[in-house]
């Protein structure tokens, strides 16, 4: 008796093609009100951004939908980005909303390939917030800014009535400058390229879920919030074939991989066994029925590198304290375009799609 491979029945393939056509259609927001899904970083968020904001503001700089926009000014190039932080609780193991707000915006600039320089900080404060808490938050922002080599140079404060906000929301915007003329972007990923991740994924998301206390679970986990500037500088220097970087925040590594596959029109294959996940994080995810690939990190990046530079990129990442557990997790394929597939640890294959929404809201 012999075993050989055969394809799927023809009719199923037709159905899959039809679904692909539907998925390529222009997104439309069907809900008449905003739901929590629109903020979860998955398909609903993407649809909202494309159908509302991209429609309204359409321009070539925005259309790339990168973490930061690259703008040519006075003969040079700068990167500009903004991000708002509504994490609950405000203080959690490994950090607080303050360093999160600095690191998040710094990282959006850094992964664009720019050197982060200046930040703005906007605060929306709820009546009743202890001033001591605000001082702690400001102090940790300053400490994070110093570590990242940036300055907070302008800001804004608003106070709203009790119940109209949740303690403290922070918005930061940032500007960075390009010290080189390389152009990075997820759309430039091509077949044969290698996908790397700079360390264990999901630490931040799991920390926040547990810190909320609703789950009655305890584990020794800390947020991985950190500025990636140094790590990125090393990677840029070591790997001329670096195509793109993204920090794996909301939506996790799985969402980033989908964004790369969609933007470049390529397929991506990743190997579950190669994706670093801390045992505590994996355990918590198993208990909660969550896939760590979708859980946020705040100090990890995903990089796409040409095959010949894969090893030097990995060495560069591992030589930095934030990248000691960096790993090659997958490769870019010609197709199917826009699709991420996973070789499971069990030895099977499955799709890794964008999530619709996230039942556990507000993690950053």
């Amino acid at each position, binding site marked *: *008796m*012999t*075993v*050989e*491979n*055969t*394809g*799927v029945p023809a*009719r*199923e*393939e037709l*159905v*899959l093609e*039809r*679904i692909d056509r*539907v998925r390529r259609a222009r997104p439309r927001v*069907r*809900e008449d*009100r*905003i*739901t*929590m*899904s629109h903020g979860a970083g998955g*398909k*609903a968020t993407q*649809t909202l951004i494309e159908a509302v904001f991209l429609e309204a503001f359409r321009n070539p700089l925005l259309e790339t939908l990168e973490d930061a926009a690259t703008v040519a000014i006075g003969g040079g190039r700068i990167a500009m980005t903004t991000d708002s932080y509504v994490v609950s609780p405000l203080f959690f193991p490994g950090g607080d909303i303050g360093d999160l707000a600095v690191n998040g915006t710094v990282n959006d600039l850094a992964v664009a390939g720019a050197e982060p320089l200046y930040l703005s900080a906007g605060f929306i404060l709820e009546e009743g917030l202890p001033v001591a808490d605000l001082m702690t938050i400001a102090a940790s922002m300053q400490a994070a800014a110093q570590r990242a080599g940036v300055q907070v140079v302008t800001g804004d404060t608003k106070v709203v009535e009790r119940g109209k906000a949740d303690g403290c929301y922070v918005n930061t915007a940032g500007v960075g400058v390009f010290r080189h003329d390389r152009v990075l972007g997820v759309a430039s990923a091509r077949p044969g390229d290698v996908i790397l991740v700079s360390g264990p994924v999901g630490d931040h998301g799991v920390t926040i879920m547990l810190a909320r206390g*609703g*789950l009655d679970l305890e584990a020794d986990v800390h947020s991985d919030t950190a500025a990636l500037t140094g790590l990125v500088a090393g990677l840029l220097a070591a790997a001329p074939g670096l195509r793109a970087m993204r920090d794996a925040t909301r939506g996790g590594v799985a969402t980033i991989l989908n964004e790369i596959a969609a933007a470049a029109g390529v397929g991506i294959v990743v190997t579950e066994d190669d994706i670093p996940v801390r*045992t505590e994080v*994996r*355990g918590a995810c*198993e208990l909660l*029925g969550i*896939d760590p690939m979708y859980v946020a990190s705040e100090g990890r990046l995903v990089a796409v590198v040409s095959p010949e530079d894969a090893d030097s990129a990995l060495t560069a990442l591992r030589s930095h304290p934030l990248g000691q557990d960096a790993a090659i997790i997958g490769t870019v394929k010609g197709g*199917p375009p826009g*699709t991420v*597939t*996973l*070789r*499971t*640890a*069990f*030895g*099977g*294959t*499955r*799709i890794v*799609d964008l999530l*619709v*929404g996230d*039942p556990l809201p507000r993690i950053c």
Partner: protein
Amino acid sequence: MRFVDEFRDAEMARALAAKIVALCEPGREYKLMEVCGGHTHTIYRHGLEDYLPQQITLVHGPGCPVCVIPMGRVDDAMALASEPDVIMTSFGDMMRVPGSNGSFFDAKARGTDIRMVYSPLDSLKIARQYPDRRVVFMAIGFETTAPSTAMTLLRAAAERLTNFSVFCNHVTIIPAIKAILDSPDLRLDGFIGPGHVSTVIGCRPYEFIARDYGRPVVVAGFEPLDILQSIYMLMLQLAQGRATVENQYSRVVSWEGNGVALRAIAQSMELRPYFEWRGLGFISQSALRVREEYAAFDAERLFAVPGVRVADPKACQCGEVLKGVLKPWECKVFGTACTPETPIGTCMVSPEGACAAYYNYGRFARQRPAVVSEP
């Protein structure tokens, strides 16, 4: 990770798969139903079908608690939730299930107080926290979750809470399996028995499947190797012409079930004369309601529940999918009008639903080994 990785070992999977292939009779088609949605999820999440020869088809059964809830019950829950002072609580799975006027998520966005809980005991906590509000727990699920609802009812009674009630939608697995076995448009060779349900009810209740219908049953655990081994055990029975109930999940499931859990259910709940299942229609004695003695905690007695009956959307073929007559992708609206973002049918909502599992994990041209007869 200990106690997890052992059950996901690719080496052992290859060995089992080879044994399964060896048991296939050339030219014979095998249809095995995994009754439980948890199994469906495991099968897709780990890509287990890659190990199975083309001749073996896994048919996804009705054991997904969310998938069998008819639209009318969702509308009823929505009506309850919009009563003054009510805080509606339910499991996360319920939040996206579409009623005639949107889902719990949509109602929440409109201002209805609906909260997600991880356990019915969390609803009790909310009730204690808000003594001037009426807290309703929308209970769903098979015998797996019924004991926790039962314990919550007992606890609420012991605490003499006056602002807590249960909107009971618990269903029982055996009548659903029987309905499928009696359905004329079906051909199944064997059943992968539900693991979690069986921790409560044991293995004995499945004996009629082997005895009266001549179909083998193997109660299975939830790790991929559990399921692969169960498929092997089913194939072995089929090859030997046997039909018995076997227990692969013996590390958790006992033959007689969990007496404490069963007594808690019996103490606080009783069988309804009949209950509507999505896609399967009315099945007699297939669901639980709160007993008279616990009437003070029964939302159906405390509130004027409209008792809405809504026909399933015409385009939706969840019923055929639940019975295993159609594969998810064979449904007319699968992946086009009905997607996880815009579910028409319940099978597309829960991660345990056959359609959602296939859409999220299995939507690609899978290469599978085929058994070819010897030259």
